[in-house]
């Protein structure tokens, strides 16, 4: 996984609550068996006027120039500023792959849906929960026309922007994992003995769970 230590970038305000993963990456792109190739279709139904499908390139598409990601001043933005319950709905990790491939390293919101937030951590994308008032303050500045630059320091657990410094929470395990770009499966398998020991006693306790094992 790509490590995340610090990141500085322009924040683009997506002023909408309850953005679901069907909006982040519509279903027709989920037919892919790869982890890449989703960036051009991030927010597809909002970014383009025509219906997207696999194989169509942005050059073939009718760009919706009103959509915030298409506004010239936000080209190259790498921080997504979002409203509450971002990433709700489908568990599709493709949503995070699309955000990451588009260039977003972190998403700031007052709240995230659980599965989406989890998926972010597995892909080196940092979902940062700030207090409602702090997110509102960032939105107010951006919507008033300011280019809101944001500096994220994961080790310090801070988001700095303008004169403000906001703190955020993260579990030690996730922080460690992101800072070091850890292979989580490798880390779990380092505990293989514990898993085997558990499995052995669990099998004694709940043998009917192992009926299909030979």
């Amino acid at each position: 996984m790509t490590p995340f230590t610090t990141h500085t970038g322009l924040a683009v305000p997506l002023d909408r609550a309850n953005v679901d993963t069907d909006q982040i990456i519509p279903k027709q792109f989920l037919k892919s068996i790869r982890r890449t190739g989703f960036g051009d279709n991030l927010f597809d139904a909002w970014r383009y006027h025509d219906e997207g499908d696999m194989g169509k390139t942005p050059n073939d598409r009718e760009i919706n120039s009103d959509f915030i990601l298409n506004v010239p001043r936000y080209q190259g933005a790498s921080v997504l500023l979002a409203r509450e319950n971002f990433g709700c709905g489908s568990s599709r990790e493709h949503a995070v792959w699309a955000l990451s491939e588009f260039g977003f390293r972190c998403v700031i919101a007052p709240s995230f849906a659980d599965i989406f937030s989890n998926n972010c951590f597995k892909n080196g994308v940092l979902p940062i929960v700030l207090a409602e008032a702090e997110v509102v303050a960032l939105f107010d500045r951006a919507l008033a026309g300011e280019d809101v630059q944001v500096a994220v320091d994961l080790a310090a657990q801070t988001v700095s922007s303008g004169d403000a410094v906001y703190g955020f929470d993260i579990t030690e395990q996730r922080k460690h994992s992101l800072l070091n770009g850890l292979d989580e499966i490798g880390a779990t398998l380092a505990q293989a003995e514990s898993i085997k020991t558990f499995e052995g006693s669990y099998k004694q306790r709940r043998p009917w769970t192992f009926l299909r094992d030979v």
Partner: protein
Amino acid sequence: MAQTLYDKIWQDHLVTEQEDGSALLYIDQQLLHEVTSPQAFEGLRLADRSVWRIAGNLATPDHNVPTDPKERETGIAGITDLIARTQVSTLDDNCRAFNIEQYDIHDKRQGIVHVMGPEQGATLPGMTIVCGDSHTSTHGAFAALAQGIGTSEVEHVLASQCLLQRKTKNLAVRISGELGHGVYAKDLVLKIIGELGTAGATGHTIEFMGEAIRNLSMEGRMTVCNMAIEAGARAGLVAFDDVTAAYVKGRPLAPSGELWDQALAYWRTLHSDADAVFDTQHSIDVTNMAPQVSWGTSPEMVVAIDGVVPEPVGAKEEGIRNACTYMDLQPGQKMTSIELDRIFIGSCTNARIEDIRVAAQVAKGRKVASSITQAMVVPGSGLVKAQAEEEGLAQILVDAGFEWRAPGCSMCLAMNADKLQPGEHCASTSNRNFEGRQGHNGRTHLVSPATAAAAAIAGHFVDSREFV
């Protein structure tokens, strides 16, 4: 210390726990399908890892399979969408390569993972179950801790049979009163989501409790738990009781004989202790509750069938305004004035035999309105399909003008050819009414099978209690 049902299942599967609360949780059963597994298998291959416990996994293709009976006749070779065909055959290849059992496209047991698992007895009480699909919460109806996960987590479970996570909070949703005639589990869960809101249960596991839940069949309980995720909860639960035992007994993968007795003794403990403390509580009385219908673009945007589109006021003003624009509805407009273009009866929410029976009951001796472009019924599995045909339900539906399809996820998420055209309104028994969910610029209304079937007959929404 008194424990909730969630606490009990969590504790029973806890392998290790760190000081920050991060835990390794042992997973009994992983269900796999074609859409969220290919990258996980690829990851295993790239890292040269093997599957930890082969029998801890069970696969079936569902999201992408065609439901047109003709297209299905020749199996994978008949899938006309070549990209979809590749995805379904990739599941075949991966299951073969890793020796994982699959009910493939030709198998009678093939179906929507969340219909197939319980039907086969792969879903058992007290289990931890995961699947790369958010509606895995369905299996919580069996007092199993069932959660939707992302593809990286699918890979993690394949490799280690464990999930890395922290414990959620406990939320009790207590439902009092009895559902009236012609009011179903789907109406109940829509009502609950309307009250909790789409993020109301984020960070929680919901336990659905109370008289109305105890009176539901297992299929009804599955419908309720299925949509726990639409209130933000990764998992929903219902305590074990005689209804659960009766459903599980005799299923192909369920224990029998002495092992059944042993399992049953344990399963009887799968309920929250009387004095268990929940972090959050919500109570609802369903006496006199009418059938429910969603009007907007979030599952929380729900009103009674005799209700109207709400005014854009309060904290959600902008969301209501956006949804009205997308849905082409006016505040104050009666739900019964909404004319439908398509009807979809299916999905992991409502594609089981009881759902088909209700639809057939409404359709019997009636005709789909001529203004309806398409009304389709998509059974949840090959076995549901066979049973509905044997009971004569399929014929009743076909005689009324419904299309009778082959099993799959179909128009719930419209990955295959079953989809809405721009601007069309659909009465759908599925679980999500997000923008474009059932097709680009399509407009979805979430309802019960009875309401969907009645809307097909009337051509517009109508109180289905008049039909059953």
